[in-house]
């Protein structure tokens, strides 16, 4: 059966009032709705029967049945490969990787198999698969702090989604589950707002979510704040730092336009180019290391399409090109902070 092309479909919103949810609650609602609507949808992963590392699946096993919410052995290659095979037979698995970092132990299954099998077969098979990947630094040291969004950005054949608020998280997860392709669903570890765990940026993980069913299309960015003087593109946790900075700068008379791409692949380049043609200045903020960051590709695209509209060198803020250190003050110093974002924007504007 064929699915609506979500990259073109407009967001369907049937508002029936709304409430404040955390991202993890919004994702849980999305899973519940999609599993109820389509019994081919199932969730696999380690420890998910009791809710998983971020409690995304809390209570789902009870309500949806233990044959649709499955605890796996610690066999990332095994259960990711299993999900690929199951998807080719028409099921629609959602794989919970606990921490995105663990996907590297099954990298071949995504880099060589999931992203290529359809292509190499000349379109004979289809792999509707969602892989849930918590990303970024969260005080656990280098092996639990990788930026999944940049390490897989260069892999053809998959889609990459990175919501930053509960509304987008729910709408995008529903779209991802209905998509017939492999979708990496990447949320920053600090954004889930799971209950029962200490979360920094608590406020950043709560937001309005309408009661009714709606979708957020994959591949469409969102202007989170209108502005005139500079375009700032950011996602994940750093997007929230950028929004705070933009408020501060308003008092200084600097008007910042903030764009949340929401999906990195496919990327809504038009939205960024359009904005840059208006503001003539661009800053990209990423939590991942500088080398290989998705932002560098956006820069090359903007240069190609809007070179003559740019008045100041395109700027970038990212993490250092290092593994993430454990010691809290060192971790904080390694990634973009609100303070550094403020300084950078002032610098781009005033030189």
């Amino acid at each position, binding site marked *: 059966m064929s699915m609506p092309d979500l990259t073109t479909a407009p967001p369907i919103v049937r508002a029936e009032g709304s409430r404040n949810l955390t991202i993890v609650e919004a994702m849980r609602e999305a899973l519940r709705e999609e599993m109820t609507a389509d019994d081919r949808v*199932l969730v696999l992963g380690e420890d998910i029967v009791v809710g998983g590392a971020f409690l995304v699946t809390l209570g789902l096993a009870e309500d949806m049945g233990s*044959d649709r919410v499955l605890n*796996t*052995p610690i*066999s*990332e*290659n*095994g*259960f*990711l*490969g*299993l*999900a*690929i*095979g*199951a*998807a*080719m*037979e*028409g*099921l629609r698995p959602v794989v919970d990787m606990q921490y995105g970092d663990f996907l590297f132990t099954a990298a*071949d*299954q995504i880099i*060589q*198999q999931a992203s290529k*099998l*359809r*292509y*190499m*077969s*000349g*379109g*004979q*098979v*289809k*792999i*509707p698969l969602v892989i849930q990947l918590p990303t970024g630094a969260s005080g656990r040291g280098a092996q639990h702090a990788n930026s999944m969004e940049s390490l897989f950005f260069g892999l*053809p*054949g998959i*889609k990459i989604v990175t919501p930053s608020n509960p509304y987008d998280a729910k709408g995008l997860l529903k779209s991802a589950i209905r998509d*017939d*392709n492999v979708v990496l669903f990447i949320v920053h570890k600090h954004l889930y707002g799971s209950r029962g765990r200490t979360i920094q940026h608590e406020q950043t993980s709560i937001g309005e979510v309408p009661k009714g069913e709606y979708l957020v299309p994959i591949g469409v960015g969102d202007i989170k704040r209108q502005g005139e003087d500079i375009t700032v593109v950011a996602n994940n946790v750093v997007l929230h730092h950028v929004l705070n900075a933009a408020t501060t700068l308003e008092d200084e008379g600097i008007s910042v336009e903030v764009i949340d791409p929401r999906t990195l692949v496919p990327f809504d380049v038009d939205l960024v180019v359009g904005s840059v043609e208006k503001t003539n200045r661009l800053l990209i903020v990423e939590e991942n290391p500088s080398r290989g960051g998705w932002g560098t590709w956006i820069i090359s695209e903007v240069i190609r399409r809007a070179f003559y509209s740019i008045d100041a060198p395109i700027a970038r803020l990212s993490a250092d090109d290092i593994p993430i250190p454990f010691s809290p003050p060192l971790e904080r110093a390694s990634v973009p902070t609100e303070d550094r974002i403020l300084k950078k924007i002032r610098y781009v504007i005033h030189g």
Partner: protein
Amino acid sequence: MMFLIRRFETVVNDLFLRGRVPGTIHLCRGQEATLVGAMGALESKDRITLTHRGHGQALAKGVDPGGLLAELMGKTGGVCRGMGGSLHVGDWSVGALPAIAIVGASSPIATGLAFAAKRLGTGRVTCNFFGDGTASKGELHEAMNLASVWELPVVFLCENNVYAATTHISEYMKNEYVSERAVAYRMPGVSVFGNDPLTVYTAVKEAADRARQGGGPSLVECLTYRRDGHKRDDPAAYRDHREVEAWLRTDPIPTFRNRLHEEAGISENILAGIEESVESQLLAAQGFAHSSPYPPVEQRLSYVYA
């Protein structure tokens, strides 16, 4: 069918030497009995996953020789429209999943096909082909454990041809048989002589029936041998000539032909007739493959996303 595979590979070899087949090829001459015996024990609705040495596996499962040959040439008439080539042949419509060339990677995926069969109640069994060298890959072990824990209908079928590329099995495992590893997952495991199609049939049939009846996975190891080198440019000089001679004496093609003639009493005429029909099948296949055009270059941008 065994004869078809043997002759198909011979044709492929000739075409490769004449530069009509690009890239690389891994021939399965010598291993036909395992393929045909195993496939005979499966139903047409069943699934198989193929290896880098997949031409024979594909033919035995019923993939069309013309489409297969066209694929090896990168033609638009290929079973994968020319997108895959020799390392990725297969036709999902006959249950042959286009081959996975990264060894070990197919085992978890085959386990997933079996998972879906169990969940959807299709009654399908999946047969996961892999080689003796691949038994050193962790993916296989993760898959065998998962299949065992979840009691999935999959047969892990090891074509043990004594070598991993150029490396002798004694260099990479202490075990005498790969099937010894089944106990690590409390799974039935057997080793059989892979050059006798009937022995292979019996072993795989038992495993497939058990799987179909909800008895879970099995490991079946078939002991066989490569006539050729690992790939086309490999003279296989690293093999002990006594080992080679001993195995070639058990070459399934002449051996089984004699048995059909002597034991089953099938007449020379009938056998010759079969062989002729194979030759004409192959001529037709070559005709199709040669006349099939290359795909338009725009096709490279298709099939990336569904």
